[in-house]
């Protein structure tokens, strides 16, 4: 049994329906409806996956006209291939678990039903993004997930920090989105279509790709490179890549399930998905020798920078969610790196495993935060290992998956796939080194996080009185923990099922065991270093200084300040923005406004000169004439006595005179 592609819209439609209904009610049943819709969507996605696996090489498409413009219509469409189906299964599965977790986490929130309404809306938009066969439909859903993210980051909108973070997220991603929009327009203009697959006419099909990479721009870039880089701008914004990563840590102002679903597992991965989706376009210039830069090279370096930078900053954060947020930035950098070095299947593999273990980590963090009365500072937590056994166990599994502990955990296999791909990249080995450094750092900061949070003794009232959460919150953790382990086995070098399914032309990499040994060594070093610094001598007071900060205070302060990106942007772009605004305002008020006022004053001046002339010359003559008229009138008015009979007498007299004249003179 499978689901035909023209019905695949049912997957996003179900959550959308719940969101639409939920907008009109505050009934708590919205939550159950949302979970039910997600569960059904999960079942449908599994059916879709089953169908897609029958013909993995040929994407099934269903295209239709959105509206007709006379010279052609704007086409949208749905698509079903293994990539879409796998992503749908992941989103609906993780989504269902996070929805269930939220039942417990948001239980006491006054806007409980609104939360599930927004979450469902997000799920609908995200699933719509995955199933679209048109860059335009993808862009529409892309913006809608941005809106959902905005609404959910600002869910506690009465907090100024949450409201500001929501705005920052929307604006920052919109900068990237404008690049995407321009790329989309350019693509539409040069190819006449936005459909990915359209029976040979789609933008990802051979004919269009060849024509796009065949055209060269004035700057020497191939047309496909320029379009690809603009599209990549959108991915930079959405996936929190350097230099637009600044919004993602702030997005942690939202409720923790939101951070888990949107800002770790799904939405932020949409950028990676986008690049994987348009991969033929991105890699169209790969065989052109004479271009100044290949699109994918840029992707690889941006990814490498992001991976390294995110891991570095994560080492110095003290908020449990911010550590995870920067870890997400770093891992997304990994995925971009994989895309850039030519292995999009490795990127999707890491995307899928990361979605599970990062959702697990965030939900674990949520569990900790919920239990310890909204305490998020790891210096104030501690000692939760014994109080929250399930949370600790699952969080530890997530931590080991993220760190890449060998063989048993999924993160290890996906990370290995990326490192091997980077090793084989013949342009440069810098991304590989950045990735290896990040491996070390990731193991290190995760050890620090676990040691500070779960070991030692409780260092605040909140963590002192923490106790394990109810099953509605722990069961999703356990399920995700299981997935964080087993999911790695679908893509091992010995059985690369996932890679082969996604890409029919997949060829296994040949990095050999030496690279794997190196990375295992680095993971061990990271774990050992973390243990040495943080677990050997456990923190006893909240105010005790971080051992690293003692060793290198300057570096740690810079990292804790997130390398100063926020003040830098505030001082450059923020200032520029203010300046432009002030300039436009002054231009309006002073320059154009005064010009208009000057014209008006000039008009008034002319008028007054004119008036003087009129009064002295023309009016004088009129005045004299009117004086004469007035005098005459005054004389005549003497005759008016007001006595009616007097007037009548005059009339009678005149009549008699008339009669006499007629009588004597005769009538002719």
């Amino acid at each position, binding site marked *: 049994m499978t689901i035909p592609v023209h019905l695949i819209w049912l997957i996003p439609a179900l959550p959308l329906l719940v969101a639409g209904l939920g907008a009109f009610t505050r009934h708590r049943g919205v939550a159950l409806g949302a979970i039910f819709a997600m569960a059904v969507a999960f079942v449908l996605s599994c059916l879709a996956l089953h169908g897609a696996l029958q013909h993995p090489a040929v994407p099934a498409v269903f295209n239709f006209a959105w509206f007709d413009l006379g010279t052609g219509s704007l086409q949208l469409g749905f698509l079903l291939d293994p990539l879409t189906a796998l992503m749908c299964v992941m989103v609906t599965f993780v989504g269902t678990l996070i929805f269930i977790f939220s039942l417990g986490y948001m239980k006491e929130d006054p806007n409980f039903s609104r939360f599930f309404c927004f979450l469902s809306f997000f799920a609908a938009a995200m699933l719509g993004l995955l199933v679209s066969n048109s860059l335009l439909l993808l862009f529409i859903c892309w913006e809608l997930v941005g809106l959902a993210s905005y609404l959910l980051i600002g869910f506690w909108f009465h907090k100024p920090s949450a409201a500001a973070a*929501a*705005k920052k997220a929307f*604006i920052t991603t919109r900068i990237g989105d404008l690049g995407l929009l321009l790329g989309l327009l350019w693509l539409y203009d040069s190819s006449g279509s936005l459909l990915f697959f359209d029976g040979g006419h789609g933008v990802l099909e051979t004919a269009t790709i060849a024509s796009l990479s065949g055209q060269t721009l004035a700057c020497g870039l191939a047309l496909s490179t320029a379009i690809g880089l603009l599209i990549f701008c959108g991915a930079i914004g959405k996936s929190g890549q350097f230099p637009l990563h600044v919004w993602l840590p702030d997005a942690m102002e939202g409720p923790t399930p939101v951070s888990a679903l949107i800002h770790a597992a799904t939405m932020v991965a949409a950028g990676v998905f986008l690049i994987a989706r348009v991969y033929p376009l991105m890699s169209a210039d790969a065989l052109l020798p004479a271009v100044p830069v290949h699109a994918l090279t840029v992707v690889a370096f941006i990814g490498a920078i992001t991976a390294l930078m995110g891991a570095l900053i994560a080492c110095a954060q003290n908020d449990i969610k911010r550590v995870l947020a920067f870890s997400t930035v770093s891992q997304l950098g990994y995925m971009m790196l994989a895309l850039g070095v030519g292995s999009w299947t490795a990127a999707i593999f890491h995307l899928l495993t990361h979605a599970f273990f990062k959702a697990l980590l965030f939900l674990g963090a949520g569990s900790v935060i919920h239990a310890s009365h909204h305490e998020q500072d790891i210096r104030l937590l501690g000692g939760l290992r014994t109080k929250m056994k399930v949370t600790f166990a699952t969080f530890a599994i997530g931590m080991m998956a993220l760190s890449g502990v060998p063989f048993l955990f999924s993160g290890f296999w996906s990370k290995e796939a990326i490192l091997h791909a980077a090793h084989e990249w013949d342009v440069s080995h810098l991304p590989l080194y950045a990735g290896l450094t990040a491996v070390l750092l990731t193991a290190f900061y995760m050890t620090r996080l676990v040691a500070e949070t779960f070991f030692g003794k409780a260092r605040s009232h909140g963590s002192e009185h923490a106790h394990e959460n109810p099953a509605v919150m722990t069961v999703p953790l356990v399920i995700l923990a299981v997935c964080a382990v087993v999911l790695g086995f679908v893509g091992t070098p010995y059985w690369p099922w996932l890679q082969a399914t996604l890409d029919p032309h997949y060829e296994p990499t040949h990095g050999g065991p030496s690279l794997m040994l190196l990375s295992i060594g680095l993971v061990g070093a990271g774990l050992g270093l973390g243990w040495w610094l943080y677990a050997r001598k456990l923190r006893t007071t909240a105010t005790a200084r971080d051992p690293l900060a003692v060793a290198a205070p300057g570096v740690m302060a810079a990292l804790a300040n997130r390398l100063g990106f926020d003040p830098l942007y505030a001082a450059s772009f923020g200032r520029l923005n203010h300046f432009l*605004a002030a300039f436009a305002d002054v231009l309006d008020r002073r320059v154009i406004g005064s010009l208009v006022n000057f014209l008006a004053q000039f008009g008034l001046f002319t008028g007054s000169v004119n008036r003087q002339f009129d009064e002295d010359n023309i009016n004088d003559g009129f005045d004299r004439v009117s004086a004469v008229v007035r005098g005459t009138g005054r004389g005549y008015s003497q005759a008016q006595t007001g006595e009616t009979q007097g007037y009548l007498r005059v009339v009678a007299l005149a009549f008699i005179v008339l009669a006499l004249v007629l009588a004597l003179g005769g009538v002719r």
Partner: protein
Amino acid sequence: MKCLLSTLILTPWVGALLLAFTPRLSPKASRILALLFSLSTLGFAALAWSGFDPSGSYQFVEQHAWISGLNVSYHLGLDGMSLVMVLLTGLIAPIALLASWKVERDPRLFNLLFLFLQGAALGVFLALNFFPWFIFWELSLVPAFFLIKLWGGPGASRAAYQFVVYTIGGSAFMLLGFAALFASTGTFDFVELAALARNGGLTAAITGPVLTAIFLGVLLGLAVKVPLFPFHTWLPSAYSEAPTGASMFLTGVMSKMGVYGFLRILWPLFPAQLHAAAPVLVGLALAGVVLGTFAAMAQRDLKRMVAYSSINHVSYCLLALFAVAATGSLHTAASVSALSGSLLQMFNHGLSASALFFCVGILESRSGGKHGLNDFGGVRTSAPIFAGLCGVALFSSLGLPGLNGFVGEFLVFRGVFGLVPWAAAVGCLGLFATAYFLLTFWQRVFHGPQGPGVAAFRDLSALEVVTLVPSVVLMFVLGIWPQLLVSVFNPLVTAWARHLP
């Protein structure tokens, strides 16, 4: 059906006359009467729509000789563009009247002037002869002047004078231009003049420099009305000082009169001149797009902010037209897209901007006249329904997909990118800045801790919900199913893109 268009125009005026001759009418009765007469436009427009053939040219034409000595005829006609504008007027006018339901001071006179304004605006959208067209054009200023001056804010008097004098100043040049045209061609009829322009009769009758001067005069008259940068300085004060209902109508309908004039008069009559001037005009429209938003960012007064965003949004319409005029008919698909986007954007902006003005009006009425950016905070806590509906209007205005604003802007940008790519790239700056200041608006007013007095805000009354909901519903409908409106003007726009030089 024979004189449908005259009926359409005159019905609001009949309502105005009725109000004029019933001085003892209670305020409530006068409001209901005005609303009914105002709604009649929507009814007649629906009637016209049902009998409308999108592929034909002017329909429901009425042509009667009027002043035979001057060859002036009373000539009305309806094509796809007029129909869209009439529908917009029919929507916005009743909504604006509903928004003015609480006007305390002489509601009868207010409603009377309003109906008068509505009729004049309809006349502008339907007249096909310059003479009646110009009469309607100027007549619309009279009620607008009084509406701003008598019911406006503290600076209303100055704003009203500025508005009227500036606009009349512009249209004086236009009148002069048409007088010169008439002197050479002997006709005032738009259709005949356009035919002359197409077959070269206009250039044969008038020498080049004179024709250019006429073009500039007409351009000036229309540019002030839209307004095109840099003729926009009257707008922020007029919109922000006017009473809420009048602001809604001014921005929703009257700013479209200018754009309509560009498409109906300037482009068909002076294609060569417009083509020559287009590079400069594209620059001016871009300046409106970019500087309009940045100026909006600098405002600390919500009404002025929304007014500046209006400048930005109508500049998109003009940008599309100028881009098409600049490149001619080289790229039909892009031209069709740009012009369709322009027409859609006119309608969409009417919906979203009037809704935004209404929302600011609500804030003002709840807080006793405050409308500063920093006077509020946390309104969403006390008035969630209001926040939701206002949020939809805001996001429609910033072009979120799924709402109507996106479709228009996407089509405009798609067209402009195909014709003048750099202009589209620069225009993106406007898209970004629009999002920035609208979200600032949203954040400062609705989010954060509650400002002074905000806790006592009532949520929307039933009347206010009824006022706001039609626009909001239409935002969704047109965002998801734009074909509804696109099919009305599609053949017309395609014909423009193919046949105009």
